[in-house]
């Protein structure tokens, strides 16, 4: 399937270190703006066997602590950090001026 690019808002729509849910097509994304200004988009679903959302976790540097089970996740790669294991799908984000786009 061809890649589709969605405009998901302006930078100001995303509070620093606080996640926001964006539904693009049939994918629910958790979008984060880290303190260095970078924006990351991950599938909004914890790889924990019980699932649950990610968008409400605590953000530290490029890491996310998921809100339900406190798993530590690398926002850049989607990789769950040891001792837990798993991976979350990440989607490329681009910034043109203030406009944030994500490619699915």
């Amino acid at each position, binding site marked *: 399937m061809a890649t589709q690019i*969605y405009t998901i808002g302006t930078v100001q729509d995303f509070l620093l270190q606080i996640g926001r849910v964006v*539904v693009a097509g049939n994918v629910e994304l958790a979008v984060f703006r880290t303190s260095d200004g970078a924006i990351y988009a991950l599938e909004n679903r914890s790889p924990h066997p019980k*699932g*649950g959302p990610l968008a*409400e976790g605590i953000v*530290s*540097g490029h*890491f996310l602590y998921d*809100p339900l089970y*406190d798993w530590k996740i690398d926002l850049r790669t989607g990789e769950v950090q040891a001792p837990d294991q798993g991976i979350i799908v990440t989607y490329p984000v681009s910034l043109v001026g203030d406009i944030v786009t994500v490619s699915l």
Partner: protein
Amino acid sequence: MTTIREKLVLVGNGMAGIGTIEQILKLGGAYDITVFGSEPHPNYNRIMLSYVLEGSKTLNDIILNDWNWYEDNNIALHTGTTVIRIDEGSKQVVTDNGMIVPYDKVIIATGSNSFILPVPGSDKEGVVGFRDISDCDAMLVAAKQYRKAAVIGGGLLGLEAAKGLVNLGMDVTVVHLMEDLMERQLDRNASSMLQAELERQGVKFAMGKQTVELSGEQRVSGLRFSDDSTLAADFVVMAVGIKPNVTLAKESGISVNRGIVVDDYLQTSMQNVYSIGECAEHRGMCYGLVAPLFEQGMVLAKHLCGSDTKPYEGSIVSTKLKISGVDVFSAGEFLDSPEHTVISSKDEWKRTYKKILLKNNVIVGAVLFGDVTESANLQKLVKQGAVMTDEIYTEVMGAGCCGVGAKKGTSVEAMADEEIVCGCNGVTKKAIVDAVTEHGFTTVDEIKACTGATRSCGGCKPVVEQILQFVLGDSFQQAAKQGICGCTTLSRDEIVAEITAKDLKTTKEVMNVLGWKQEEGCSKCRPAINYYLGMMNPDTHQDEKESRFVNERMGANIQKDGTYTVIPRMYGGVTTPEDLKKIADVSLKYDVKVVKVTGGQRLDLIGVKKEDLPKVWEELDMPSGYGYAKSLRTVKTCVGSQFCRFGTQDSMGMGALMERKYERLDFPAKFKMAVNGCPRNCAESCTKDIGIVGNDGGWEVFIGGNGGIKPRIADAFCKVKTDEELIEVCSAVMQYYRETGNYLERTSEWVERMGLEQIQTVILNNEENRKELAARIDFALTQVTDPWKKMLNDNSTRAALFEETRL
């Protein structure tokens, strides 16, 4: 004069045989010793293969006795040599490479082999057992080349192998014939908790599957089960059991059932030939665990040295799993049947499980999951066949909800000298005590180096520490200092002191100035620092939403499916028909899944969608109940003097007043209160952070109660005559807790840490102090606002937090 020493031949250079030789040397046994081992290594610790697989240890680390040890003790060691026959007539042993060695006594300690399932394809490349270093090497090599592994067997060994392979990066499925893991050691509860924990760690499971064939060309490519389903795997570990290695005994005409048959002195059917360890069968039992080896070894060593010894009468088997982060223990009987009395407690949140089985009030078995601190104690009790008493119950089951404080640390005092503390290495309590008193050792590491205790699985470390503490008393130093989380080595008090000294304003500043390891902290320290800053500077601190746990940031409780629970405030547990109607209407409109009465007399509206939260609050138009916050949750009340014929005080009125006064303020942890109108205590003051009981002449105040994770009955704090005094005392207690409590520390722990008397001294003996504390909480209370009122007036924050962007 020279004495002619008898010749002792040990066949098998493993833990059981060498353990026996060590005992013989200690007892001063006069033997010329020759040892034969099929493997090319000196004696190593098979129990620790899991660690080699895990990569945390190398073969060298797990060598128990190196080449020098054999030399120093004049032992002739022949590695890579297999004994093929014992000739009773000529009293000689014969090896595969043609050696013939005469003997006076022989010990067969040939151990066991992996049982390889007799299914088609089990001889394919890529199929191994898990018994020795060469299996371990095969697994390490396979992990580099292949991706999908299957471990057949959900027992101890299989699970350790599986976790090891997961750590090596393989995708691992454990295939188990039964529906429960470790069903020979654990009951269904413990087994399912274990499975959940291992799944969390990345191990997959195919339960109730019987493997009937291994497919593939030259190399294995998959498994086929009896239900015709299949599983792809390019590497297979068989860990379905062990088979006593009895070849030598059979060839020599020694009587063999499943193992080599021995009597209570480990004597085989052949004169002067003994057998111990996994290859031996005693009273119909073959043991596959380590503790019995030492018990057998001790009896045999004494017997061979001519010392008096009690016969070996079998072992109570206990099991511990050696996977980091998974604590499982079982001893004796573990499956309950009608003849047993069962004591059990299961905590799904802490993921712990404890079960003790009694038969005619005698302790016959136990299972522990999650928290295994009582394992050594329970093992001893099972072994002794101890009769259950109130003391033992309190000791092993904890305080229970009656708050009877269990005294810890007394168990090592009562432990017998000969009792084995380290089951892996056969180290007794006496050996450890001697190491401390004779060598002046003060750390576990020193004891480890000297006695070998804790050298293997490490499960006995807490007991060794307790013994150290018991022997050394006050001079025992606690382990290295730990900070509030992994980001810092600073304690709570040090951080608070630095905040004051350096006038730090934000969590970011605190972390930068105080040299945090992770620049922006973690989910443990950020909320804590945000709380400390707010507590210290209630008027100037800008609360940091990004440092708040989800519930506090969203003003509602997150549930596992990502929906939320809304709890409208009902002061003192009292509501009105109008409010109830409104709650019902809103619940219907927003399709609330469940309306539940909480333990604190409130209504939970469970299952509200995140984007509906602002609308739900707007339409309820009620204050937030803070059922999600580290803050005053509820003030539970009884009916009191307004209606109750026994009521002496207006508990509903006082409860509502207290709740209005203290609501919304942050505490180190959630905070619960109760107000009762009479000593009948219908609102259960004894399990609240502050419990208030009315009587004819005034009020009694109780503090530090808890009904939750760590149940504790509240301590009587003081009695007061007037409502004003009551409020002042409560204010002072709350503020003192706010100022000195560790973040997330409940008052039950706080009271124990600070000491009740200390708190009484600060608040009751010093009026000025009490008034200052009360004034500080009153000032902090002037700063609080209803989070939902604020949220509803702040369009951009509300949108960013609650609304979804849909494209």
